[in-house]
């Protein structure tokens, strides 16, 4: 039962970072493939093979490189680099807030890519991406705050090895985090800016002007990010590693379920409901914890 914790302690930070950088895309792609398969089954179809995302990415790398302006691909390269960096920081056990801010930096590069092409669809997608980021940012920060209040540290390594179940102290924060996780995974009802494959939103939203290898890089970056987000879900249940992993996977299945059941919200509803839900669930939890300490 404690093999994961032992692994965590025995592997040095560098080894963990390396493991993340190499294994996360494989894991992320697999999760994406399972996602498509399960969604298809929900809809009564067969669905693509589980390895389909890998096929997609490999095909995209073979396409001709076309561009609208010379610098758009650079922004996506930066997005990928900083997403990998944030994820590596997270699994290395560094400060959670710093990881969040680093991820915000990656997100900013993503949005700037959408803006710099100067196309109406891309621009609208980028604006909606900013709205999405603004919608989930408070909750993500409050999650870090909540974890600090319970464990006394922002470091992921300390939080991951905390013996008491965090979920008992942070139920509201967890609920709020689940709500915005739908935004971060880009699932209905919150897939405003660029949607997964078969769903279209403003044509392709932010990724309208990106194609070929750059699109593949965006896809891979999203895989890294998904693995990191599941890691954050794991933290809530870190006292029992297998339970943590199980809940993380269950969470993803839950997200798929929500995806299948809801149509896309308007951006006003997304924005408003996220901030409101954050306030009700997250803030109340934080305040209760604050009062408990006194």
């Amino acid at each position, binding site marked *: 039962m404690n093999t994961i914790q032992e692994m965590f302690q025995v592997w040095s930070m560098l080894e963990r970072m390396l493991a993340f950088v190499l294994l996360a895309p494989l894991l992320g792609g697999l999760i994406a493939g399972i996602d498509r398969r399960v969604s*298809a089954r929900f809809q009564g179809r067969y669905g693509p093979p589980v390895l389909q995302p890998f096929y997609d990415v490999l095909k995209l790398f073979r396409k001709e490189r076309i561009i609208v302006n010379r610098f758009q691909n650079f922004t996506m390269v930066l997005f990928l680099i900083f997403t990998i960096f944030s994820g590596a920081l997270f699994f290395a056990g560094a400060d959670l807030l710093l990881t969040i801010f680093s991820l915000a930096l990656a997100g900013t590069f993503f949005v700037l890519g959408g803006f710099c092409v100067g196309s109406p669809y891309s621009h609208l997608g980028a604006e909606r991406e900013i709205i999405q980021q603004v919608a989930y940012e408070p909750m993500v920060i409050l999650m870090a705050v909540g974890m600090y209040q319970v464990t006394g540290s922002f470091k992921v390594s300390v939080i991951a090895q905390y013996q008491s179940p965090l979920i008992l102290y942070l139920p509201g924060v967890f609920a709020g985090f689940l709500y915005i996780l739908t935004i971060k995974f880009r699932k209905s009802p919150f897939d405003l800016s660029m949607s997964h494959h078969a769903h279209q939103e403003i044509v392709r939203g932010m990724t309208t002007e990106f194609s070929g290898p750059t699109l593949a890089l965006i896809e891979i970056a999203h895989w890294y990010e998904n693995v990191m987000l599941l890691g954050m879900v794991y933290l809530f249940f870190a006292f029992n590693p297998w339970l943590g992993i199980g809940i993380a996977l269950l969470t993803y299945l839950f997200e798929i379920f929500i995806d299948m059941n809801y149509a896309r919200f308007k951006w006003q509803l997304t924005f408003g409901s996220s901030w409101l839900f954050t306030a009700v669930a997250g803030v109340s939890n934080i305040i209760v914890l604050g009062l408990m300490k006194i």
Partner: protein
Amino acid sequence: MGWFKRSPWILHYNATSCNGCDIEVIVSLTPLYDLERFGIINTGNPKHADILAVTGSVNEKSRQVLINLYEQMPNPKVIVAVGLCAISGCVFQDCYNVMGGVDKVLPVDVYVPGCAARPEAIIDGVLKACEILEEKYSQQKKIQSRLAKI
């Protein structure tokens, strides 16, 4: 390696069709016929697409749009003409405003007959287009490597 065969993305364009073939194309994506099990996705964006599925006999307005869309698609790409109107204009062939089929404007690779073309035929046509896609890619690579040697 056959990645194009496993993950072809379609851009579907209606060039003055009556919508019959369009409905059949979209129906192919529904659970009954399920194109997605071949990894096929209907994207709305030419920059993401490999296959351009065109329905309808082309007229002046859609001619320019078709050319725009075709130019924005990255290589390798194939064109599938779905339905008799896209193949030759069918009963509208001699109309003054109709060009008479997609191949008057763009190089078509696969013709899918029918009015409206049946989903099974469309799936068949798209899968054939995937094979052609693979061939185009390997030819492209051969040419590139020969150019590199020069």
